[in-house]
């Protein structure tokens, strides 16, 4: 790696990076035999994924009793993990849709992997409700279909809204992601050395040729997807929060939940993006595409959303006091001082205190620091959900109805195993897919070509090379 590829002050990427170099750098790992670090990481991830698979298989025979859920704690880690993973996914859509609509060019280096993360995170999240229903083999009862029972699902239930929100979110994210992949599959096809890969990539590219007429339709379609996905991603975590906010449980029954959940989701999602990209840029030598400036910008998002989340925590306490509602007030005494106080303080330290380190530029641009902080963010957001869901349920209105929740080894196993599933999928993706959006990246290169033959001034190359932009 020569120093010439380091970006300068004016540009996000080095002006020395040319288009054919982008093609080569991004597609080369797809044709190589995986490296030893990749094999080790993939093996480890698969091993950890067994921790999810094994308890679920065991549960099919012995039932939900193997987990710690009891009355009144009927949700347990299932809902904690579900909301945690759905939240992780939100950063991907934010990057692909909302940053696109705001014309943030730096997204082009990270959008592909962030969207992949969305898809895998939603898949991982989807496991938990399916396991939690107990009789997983009849999980299709969640879908309204004309059955011999003649009854329909209850459309007044937020849990059913969740089914629709999550499946729609998954489908739309997948379609949007695939559209962005079309030109890159075409690049892989035209670069393929043998017939098998040429045919495979030709099928995957749907015969994309890069004609201006096609780009014209493509860009319209892309922008339309962004317009659809932007409100969708906000709706998904809002609807997830309705699972709680629409109930009457103290600590859940608040109107702040939708924005609070969305901010938390973006916070945790960016934490996960930073964790993943720190590893990926190193593993695939993508430091010149995912630069420190990109990482710094994401760290700024983490800092901003951390402030929102911290504000939401504070305002919950204020509203509990202001409401004069004694059950609500008791709930907010329980959080910092009750039997689960440790989860509350873990949450506060990880989500509100530690991200303040990002006020310092040197920390925002330090890979070891941001890696450690991003992991704290992930841990903190897991405990946030634990804090909200478990503490509110374990002591509600009637003391005769109170009960502690204890995780069994199976609960720990599925929680840790979900990370294995997620990382297995992500590592597989990083081997067989173009990990960066090649076409979009080329459009945002500082000087996309070797220079004009017709005598243009290339000093302001940006004005004509905006990425995928229509008007």
């Amino acid at each position, binding site marked *: 790696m020569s120093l010439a590829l380091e970006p300068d002050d004016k540009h996000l990427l080095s002006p020395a990076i040319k288009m054919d170099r982008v093609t080569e750098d991004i597609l080369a790992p797809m044709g190589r035999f995986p490296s030893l670090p990749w094999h080790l990481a993939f093996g480890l991830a698969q091993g950890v994924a067994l921790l999810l698979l094994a308890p679920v298989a065991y549960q099919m025979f012995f039932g939900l009793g193997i987990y710690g859920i009891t009355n009144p704690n009927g949700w347990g880690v299932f809902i904690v993990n579900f909301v945690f993973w759905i939240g992780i996914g939100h950063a991907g859509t934010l990057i692909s849709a909302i940053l696109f609509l705001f014309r943030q060019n730096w997204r082009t280096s990270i959008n592909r992997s962030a969207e992949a993360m969305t898809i895998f995170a939603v898949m991982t999240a989807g496991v938990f409700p399916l396991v939690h229903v107990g009789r997983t083999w009849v999980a299709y009862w969640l879908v*309204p279909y004309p059955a011999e029972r*003649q*009854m*329909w699902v209850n*459309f007044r239930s937020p849990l059913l809204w969740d089914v*629709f*929100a999550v499946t729609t979110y998954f*489908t739309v994210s997948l*379609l*949007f992601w695939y*559209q962005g992949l079309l030109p890159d599959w075409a*690049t892989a096809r*035209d*670069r393929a050395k043998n017939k098998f890969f040429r*045919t495979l990539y*030709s*099928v*995957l*590219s*749907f*015969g*994309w*040729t*890069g*004609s*201006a*007429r*096609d*780009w*014209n*339709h*493509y*860009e*319209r*379609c892309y922008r*339309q*997807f962004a317009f*659809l996905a932007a*409100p*969708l991603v906000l*709706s998904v975590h809002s*609807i997830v929060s309705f699972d709680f906010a629409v109930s009457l449980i103290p600590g859940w029954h608040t109107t702040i939940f939708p924005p609070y959940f969305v901010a938390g989701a973006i916070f945790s999602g960016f934490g996960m993006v930073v964790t993943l990209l720190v590893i990926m840029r190193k593993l695939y030598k993508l430091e010149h595409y995912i630069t420190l400036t990109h990482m710094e910008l994401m760290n700024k998002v983490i800092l901003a959303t951390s402030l929102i989340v911290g504000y939401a925590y504070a305002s919950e306490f204020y509203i509990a006091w202001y409401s004069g509602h004694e059950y609500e007030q008791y709930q907010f005494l329980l959080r910092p001082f009750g039997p689960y106080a440790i989860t509350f303080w873990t949450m506060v330290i990880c989500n509100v205190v530690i991200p303040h380190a990002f006020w310092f530029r040197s920390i925002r641009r330090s890979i070891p620091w941001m890696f450690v902080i991003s992991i704290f963010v992930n841990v903190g957001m897991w405990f946030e959900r634990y804090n909200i869901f478990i503490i509110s349920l374990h002591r509600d209105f009637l003391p005769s109805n109170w009960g502690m929740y204890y995780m069994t080894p199976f609960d720990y196993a599925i929680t840790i195993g979900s990370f294995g599933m997620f990382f297995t999928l992500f590592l597989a993706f990083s081997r067989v897919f173009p990990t960066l959006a090649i*076409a*979009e990246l*080329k459009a945002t290169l500082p000087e*996309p*070509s*070797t*220079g*004009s*033959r*017709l005598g*243009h001034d290339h000093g302001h190359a940006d004005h*004509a*090379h*905006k*990425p*995928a*932009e*229509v008007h």
Partner: protein
Amino acid sequence: MARVRVPAVLGFYDDAHDLSEVAGKANHEKGFKDLDAYSPYPIHGIEEQLGLKSSWVTIPARLGLVFGAFLGFSFQSWTSSVSWAVNIGGKPYISWPAWIPITFEAGVLMAAFCNLTAMFIACGLYPKPKTIVLSKRITNDRFVLVIPVKDDAEEAEAVSFLRENKALKIKIVDALDKEKGRLVFRSAPLAGEGAPA
């Protein structure tokens, strides 16, 4: 609909500005018809230079949004009030505020499907085992202007136009060999002004 037009003259460039400018000249000044341009990434503003109309693919998506939302809302109302009316806590059978989240999701889902399908139809995309391309470098780093021609005179005119505008390389595509599934090319000499090929 992107189809390979034959016969046609191809001018190769390595710069998006150049392609856009030459496309504009070919269309507005020289009056070549049915032009097309190929590039590794979308070029801002080239639609006007080529005289392309703005794409219609957003229309099906918008209709899909409305239709999906209508379908979602009416399905919930029908199941809860006609097919199997259940009295839930004395609430109205059609408790419409509760329908809104699913109405929204159904609209977005339908719009997304319509959006992508419309783009596939507009661009003539489907899983093809073999894709016929003008040049393998288009998806890498080349920008190509395609000037369809009818006869030798038009061909000569197009070639000299591209020469004047300093194309890196000029090629003529004569025909599409359907049996072998490939294009038949002929290369045209550059003007010999020392332009690198």
